[in-house]
């Protein structure tokens, strides 16, 4: 049994794909998402075997979304696009699986055959997975929004998830600290904290060898002894 997730912002597109998949008895569509941000949480929550992922989506494209998922927890991705010359070129280069809209049922059947035969992600990094993030998608109070990188002061984890804190906004993101650290210039200053160096106003050193960062808007971010050295190096303080 293959658990499939469909992520596409266009209702007719999802309908059509669902109808096509319905003819394959061993495929179970476990969820549908209308954008990449919902898609991220659905992937983490539903752990599908395969994701049919549209590329052109609001704010965060399918390619960007793939870059927001840790490769180890990445399901098999089948990109779906109507027309996108650049993306198609990238797919060919990365040997990624993709379908063109309107979807040809025979072509879809071939993809499903490969999946049944146990095809796993090719091991090549997906297109988009090496790019730097431009913003972090967040959810707060049932609203989805994006926070631009340079607005973010720090990011930390707590019991409710990964919290993104900017000067004016705060939200929870589906992205892990590890992914954010890899895809942004932010620096790890504590086991549970990433900080935007550009937002640092001052660093208060403490007796125990740790420190505390004060951001431009006056927020305080802890710095552990382990990470102080690294921050000093980055800021060229000896």
């Amino acid at each position, binding site marked *: 049994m293959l658990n499939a997730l469909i992520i596409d912002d*266009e*209702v*007719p*597109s999802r309908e059509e794909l669902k109808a096509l998949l319905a003819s394959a008895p061993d495929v179970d569509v476990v969820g549908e998402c209308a954008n990449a941000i919902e898609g991220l949480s659905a992937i983490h929550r539903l752990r599908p075997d395969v994701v049919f992922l549209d590329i052109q989506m609001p704010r965060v494209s399918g390619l960007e979304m793939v870059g927001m998922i840790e490769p180890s927890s990445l399901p098999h991705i089948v990109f779906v696009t109507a027309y*996108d010359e650049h993306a198609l070129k990238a797919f060919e280069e990365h040997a990624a699986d993709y379908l063109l809209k309107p979807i040809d049922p025979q072509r879809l059947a071939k993809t499903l055959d490969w999946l049944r035969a146990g095809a796993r992600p090719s091991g090549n990094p997906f297109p988009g997975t090496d790019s730097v993030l431009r913003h972090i998608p967040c959810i707060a109070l049932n609203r989805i929004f994006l926070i631009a990188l340079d607005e973010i002061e720090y990011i930390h984890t707590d019991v409710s998830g990964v919290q993104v804190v900017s000067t004016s906004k705060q939200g929870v993101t589906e992205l892990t600290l590890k992914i954010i650290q890899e895809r942004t210039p932010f620096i790890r200053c504590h086991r549970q904290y990433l900080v935007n160096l550009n937002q640092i106003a001052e660093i208060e050193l403490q007796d125990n060898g740790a420190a505390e960062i004060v951001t431009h808007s006056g927020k305080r971010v802890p710095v552990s002894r382990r990470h102080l050295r690294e921050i000093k190096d980055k800021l060229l303080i000896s």
Partner: protein
Amino acid sequence: MLELEQINHLALTGSLMQQMSVYLVIAYLLSKTPLFAPLMQVTVRLPDKLVCYFVFSGFCIMGTYFGFQIEGAIANTRAIGAVLGGILGGPVVGFAVGLTGGLHRYSLGGFTDLACAVSTTAEGVIGGCLHFYLMRRHRADRLLNPMTALFATLFAEAMQMLIILLIAKPFDDASRLVAHIALPMILTNSLGAALFMRLILDRRETMEKYSIAFSAKALRIAERSVGVLMQGFNEHNCTRMASIIQEETGVGAVAITDCEKLLGFVGVGADHHLTGTPISSTHTFYAIANNEVVYADGADISYTCSVSKDCKLSSCLVIPLRGEGNRVFGTIKLYEPKRKFFSTLNRTLGEGIARLLSNQVLAGTIEEQKQLLAQSEIKLLQAQINPHFLFNALNTLAAVIRRDPEEARQIVQYLSTFFRKSLKRVSNDASLNDEIEHVNAYLHIELARFAGRLDIKMAVPEDLLPLQLPAFTLQPIVENAIKYGISQMIEPGTVTISAQRKDAVLTIVVEDSAGLYQPQPDNDGLGMNLVDRRIKIRYGAAYGIEVTCEPECWTRVAIRLPVEKELVPC
């Protein structure tokens, strides 16, 4: 007063010849003045005829004054003025000149006064009749001929003698007088008239040579410079142009500037007049600011080089280059070094060259705009068939066919309307109604595609629908609003299309509720920029597209167009 017996024919001829020489010297000097210009051709215009009358009346009177008093009569060269006045000015002028000269003679008295008055008038009329006769026979060339003048005067003077014999009393005195003066006067006057005519012809030839030289230079410059500046008003082309002008005119140096900097300099002083450097001459600034020719001759208006003290240039002619609407866009400057003066030829030529350059640049701009327009239209044509839109539409259709064949049929209808309208020629005009129908077809397909995420509000007053605008103006803007606006929204969004007319300006506003507009300067791929550029090339910078954006709230695109013509609604 001389007694007739005291003089012989030879002596009188000699004296009259002397007198005529003085007379001709004066004529020669006068020929250097502009007063003479109208006399150098057979005159037709009234002002020229007046000049002709005054000049030759003057000569007539002068001829009388220069004459010798001989026993109450005057041996003179008055006939020259009268006959030539008639030949050049026609019967009326001839009569007037003769009458004026005659009346003047009459006022001096003597026993031949009346005879002279009548005969002088007759001489004028004879010249005039000859003029009339030759003009009638289209032999104007024969008029300006010394031999014509000679024989006409010969005939006129012979007639004068007859008139004296007929009118002057007593007849004995008259016949004695005529016997003495007839030959010298006939000879002198005929010869004088011929020489006077020769003088006029010489003057005319000089003028012609001058204008031939002028035309030749101007033509050569024009020929050599064809199209140079049409390829762009830049340093490379301006330097080429300057060197052509310098070679042809032979002036010390030639410079071409735009309104800020030197674009080309060739000739004396090229070592320190460097292209690309800002303008520093006050004369140039003045010429640009006032749209006036500035001539710094180095004497009345001093010229000193504003770049280097050691500059050898000492006089300068600055002529503004004028583009559209007589607006100054640069200057051309001619320089002469110390101890060399500007020839009038080059000064006049300079202004002609400035016009030539201006026209070239203007033609170049028009050519460039034409090309830009053509390019924009080709790109718009390509943008009309947006593959992204097409495949998404087909994909939507595939889904809708499954769910609702009737709705699918409608979508097919919209799709065909959309493509039919898209395939219209971009360079044509369309009515606002056509544009709205095009957009409507497009939006209905997008409505199906975005099912529930897109809302459309249309607020275009009926009476504006017949207004004309370039075809394919509205659709790219609406497509942008969907592509970069609504389709990037996570929540549902609205596109509002409205239009209003204020006097002769039609403004169409397309607003989306996304507010995600990012300015992308010079992005040809954007249909919006193409539409804007096409409108600006067609109607000027006052029209086109203006984008305002409240981030995360709305993006408003206003299309401003002139109301050109209206279709009468039927």
